[in-house]
């Protein structure tokens, strides 16, 4: 089985879109429409390459031979096919689904009966991989229990609320202890592979944003109220973004630069290397609520990374370094070593 195959080619997809549209409409497609479909289904520069292969010039068939000029409509083209092109569920796709069936998270989306039915549908194909082959050595051990019936039910209700833009009242364990109730409309569902937990990004009735761990939600009930206006996900997340990026300096030692670039690959950042000193200065944009997580990641590099700004973040790093110094050297000097 292949992941990298021309069957999935964006060029095939663009050709299929052109042929499908023509078959559906029953009318010839124009070159302009073809160009639009190529732009939608293929790559940025595909408009330079696909038309010359797909569109016949004069009486001469094109290289792909899939379209012919329509005699009745000047500048129009019709498909040589009799049917609208079809999509198939391929062997690798079935095999992938079969592998995912063993993932407990699949049970957040299908009930036990559907799982059994899907297993039966896929019974003739082996799983693409066996999850036992993977060892996630630094995953946190207190991940969500995806098999818990209450968790599954709450997750399903949250998804329904998100899809229908519907308010849902949730009772959750607040960080300060005790339970709290809030009415929210979910904007996005976020999974962290490291935490092995789901979080919900949502908007309260007041319009302010809220993030909550699904595992902390005790109960949930859909209301009949639909949100009239909601921020888009982009608007919501831009409100959560730090006002100024964290600026850090990475020193050219202990392979720090490569380690930093890899570990911070998921962050939006900008970096500049000073070839004279080998120092790299990087700006990191982050979610304000996740500042502590960022601080912990930066501290794990020790003196290889220095937090330059914002001041408050630098101050926090400094305080922790000082506290640690005092633990290691209670007398103040290097005598503790």
């Amino acid at each position: 089985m292949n992941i990298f195959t021309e069957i999935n080619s964006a060029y095939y997809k663009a050709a299929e879109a052109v042929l499908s549209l023509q078959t559906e409409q029953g009318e010839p497609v124009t070159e302009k429409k073809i160009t639009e479909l190529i732009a939608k289904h293929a790559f940025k520069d595909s408009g330079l390459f696909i038309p010359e292969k797909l569109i016949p010039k004069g009486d001469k068939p094109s290289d792909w031979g899939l379209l012919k000029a329509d005699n009745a409509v000047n500048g129009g083209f019709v498909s040589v096919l009799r049917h609208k092109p079809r999509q198939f569920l391929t062997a690798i796709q079935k095999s992938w689904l079969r592998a995912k069936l063993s993932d407990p998270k699949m049970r957040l989306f299908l009930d036990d009966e559907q799982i059994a039915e899907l297993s039966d549908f896929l019974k003739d194909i082996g799983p693409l991989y066996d999850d036992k082959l993977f060892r996630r050595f630094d995953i946190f051990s207190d991940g969500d229990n995806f098999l818990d019936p209450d968790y599954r039910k709450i997750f399903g209700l949250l998804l329904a609320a998100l899809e229908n833009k519907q308010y849902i009242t949730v009772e959750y364990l607040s960080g300060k202890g005790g339970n709290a109730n809030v009415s929210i409309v979910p904007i996005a569902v976020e999974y962290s592979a490291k935490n092995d937990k789901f979080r919900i990004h949502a908007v309260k009735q007041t319009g302010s944003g809220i993030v909550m761990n699904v595992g902390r939600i005790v109960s949930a009930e859909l209301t009949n109220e639909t949100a009239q206006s909601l921020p888009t996900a982009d608007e919501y997340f831009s409100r959560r973004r730090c006002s100024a990026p964290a600026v850090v300096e990475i020193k050219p030692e202990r392979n720090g630069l490569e380690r930093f670039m890899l570990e911070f690959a998921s962050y939006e950042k900008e970096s500049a290397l000073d070839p004279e000193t080998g120092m790299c200065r990087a700006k990191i944009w982050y979610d304000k609520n996740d500042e502590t997580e960022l601080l912990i990641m930066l501290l794990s590099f020790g003196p290889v990374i220095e937090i330059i700004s914002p001041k408050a973040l630098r101050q926090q790093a400094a305080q922790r370094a000082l506290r640690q110094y005092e633990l290691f050297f209670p007398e103040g000097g290097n005598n503790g070593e």
Partner: protein
Amino acid sequence: MGSFSELIKNFDKTRDYVRDFFIYGFKVRSEFNRKSSRTYDDEKRRAESWLDGFFRYVNTPRGKQAAITLDSGRIYENPLYKAYYSKSFTDNDIKLHFMITDILADFPEGLCVREVTEKLLDRYGEFFDEQTVRNKLKEYAAEGIYISSRAGKKDLFALSPDTPAGLFEKFPGLINAVKFFSEASEFGVVGNSILRAAGIKNDIFLNKHNYIVHTLEDEILLALTENISRKRFIKIKNFGKSGSCDFRGIPLKIYVSCRTGRRYLIMYLPDRKRFCSFRLDYIKTVSDMGECPEFDETLSDLAKNEDKAFGVSFGGSRDWGGRVKIVFRADEEREKHIIDRLYREKRSGAVEKTGDGLFTYTGEFFDTNEMMSWLKSFTGRIVSVNGLGDYAEKRLRSDIVRMKKMYSDCFPEKSELTEKEG
């Protein structure tokens, strides 16, 4: 030199370049010295096309710096999946793809190779030899698109009845499942291809610790998981920092770091009589070297040793292993989150309360060096460390001294101490 093509035959070069654009966002054209500058230009143009909108250019004194920058925790679809949709093909490939399927749509009972070949000529005026048509039919049967059956001496080919749309109609809940899993780390691109075929896009699920660049290793990952499942010996070509090298051994497991997204092959090397880890992004090729009768025994040896690996190291020539004992400080009432961190982030070994506000982590590890960055994430909490080895312990202490100096402007009242350190 041929002209530029958006399509590629294989991932070899692409993986390296995209990773460099993505990870080393500070390199300029002249520093990509693997191949010609023409190769650089072509690879950059492809990557720009796939990652439209995510490329950023900065003019530096060294030249123009091209980098990919995006907050991957806020994207719904890995843009690098497009790389998987850029496989090159011939004119005949695409003709046969659409035309044979169009023919078979009228013959649910199936057609043999000769009948398909004749109909290609009759319907579309396209002449193909039977061998070419047979190869395509067999290829598509292997891909699960066509179903082959035997009728007397003939192989018949018909269209598979299974479609993504049909599947989602039958299991509506599966749409969200595929949306979710399509962005997960194991072969998410396959899920994305299902959504794409059904004309659906993920618009719900985000991944907080999302390392999108690793999708480019999925072909290698598949070759490895297949060989592990089939209990084979393999040979890998590895391009590490010291150049290219071949390794032969028994592939056993894939270790994944959820913290960095990096993935490693764990392989037993009979020549060295030891388990070794290899980063997937450094592996170029995987070759099947035959059946491995010792597979099960070697895997159970690994299982016996796994708990002593804090990360991916099974020890080296230098003796960095040992039994560690680390004491952390945390206020049980006000700093429960710190204690929770210890319990959930520890690997093997045990955390115990050993005093008022004191928690001790003990465990035995092959390579205590691997603990250092995790340990430093608890800066400000570490009361004592034992068993890390002289070198690591000294380094940890001197790191803290350096950090205190580095941030000395933040606590001027402590300047006296700084001077004492010299």
